[in-house]
């Protein structure tokens, strides 16, 4: 398998992914690993319709998405995998989807305790999932769009959100 980008983005497929990350990574397959949207017929259809022709789109549960990426039939694809949360990424990793790096793009938690850059807030569960992924050897970084500077997530954990 060739994973050109594994990304946590709670907007999943949207402008930044379509217009910046696809050209940058030259991905020819986008996998949205999300249990909720895999079963949401209309949202799934509209999301798939946004992807340019010539790029394969898979919107399936975390389990089915992992199976797809690991299948030897798909080993020649350049795959971009999108997760809505660090927990989903950890789930996929534990099922065998071993991405070496995890990009944090967009994540907004109303109950967040840490703010990383302007597009990421993490709650305690997110921090624990990311810490676990890191202990498994995943390099976790922040980069909203390719033109942003790539930064390790640890260096960005500074700004604590004051409880309101």
């Amino acid at each position: 398998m060739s994973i050109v980008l594994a990304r946590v983005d709670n907007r999943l497929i949207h402008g930044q992914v379509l217009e910046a990350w696809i050209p940058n990574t030259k991905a020819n397959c986008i996998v949205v690993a999300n249990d909720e949207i895999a079963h949401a017929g209309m949202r799934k259809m509209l999301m798939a319709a946004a992807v340019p022709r010539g790029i394969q789109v898979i919107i399936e549960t975390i389990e089915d998405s992992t199976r797809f990426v690991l299948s030897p039939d798909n080993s020649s694809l350049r795959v971009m995998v999108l997760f809505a949360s660090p927990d989903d990424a950890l789930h996929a990793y534990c099922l065998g989807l071993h991405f070496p790096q995890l990009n944090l793009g967009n994540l907004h938690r109303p109950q967040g305790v840490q703010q990383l850059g302007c597009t990421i807030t993490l709650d305690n569960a997110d921090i624990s999932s990311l810490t676990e992924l890191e202990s498994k050897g995943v390099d976790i970084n922040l980069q909203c769009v390719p033109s942003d500077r790539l930064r390790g997530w640890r260096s960005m954990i500074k700004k604590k959100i004051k409880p309101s």
Partner: protein
Amino acid sequence: MVGLVIATHCGLAGELVRTAEMILGPLPFVAAVEILRGDGPDEIRQRFQHAIDVVGQDGEGVLVMTDMFGGTPSNIGFSFLEQGLVDVLSGVNLPMLLRASQERSGRSLNELALLLRNYGQQSILLASEILTK
């Protein structure tokens, strides 16, 4: 009258409305929703809901016009789709908004949406091509 919500990335929506109003004067039942990088989905959804409620108050339906199919303004707009009441038209441009403002009265949501979809596409022209015809 069908209400209009213009929803885009950054400040484009507000500026499109401001520009249309410069040409046509104040536009009733028109609202702008602008989406910034740091905005969370719940926050955006609330802003959409508010805009749809305000411009749709007379019950004739709301057309959400977004900048780009597949972008966040469209994606969140889709969650408000309701047959005959809310529809989403992507690729908004100034001619479409001007036309929408002039053609709204007496048209159903569906008629207006189809008219604007076609008009928006027809409003994109290449000067050199016109000259060589």
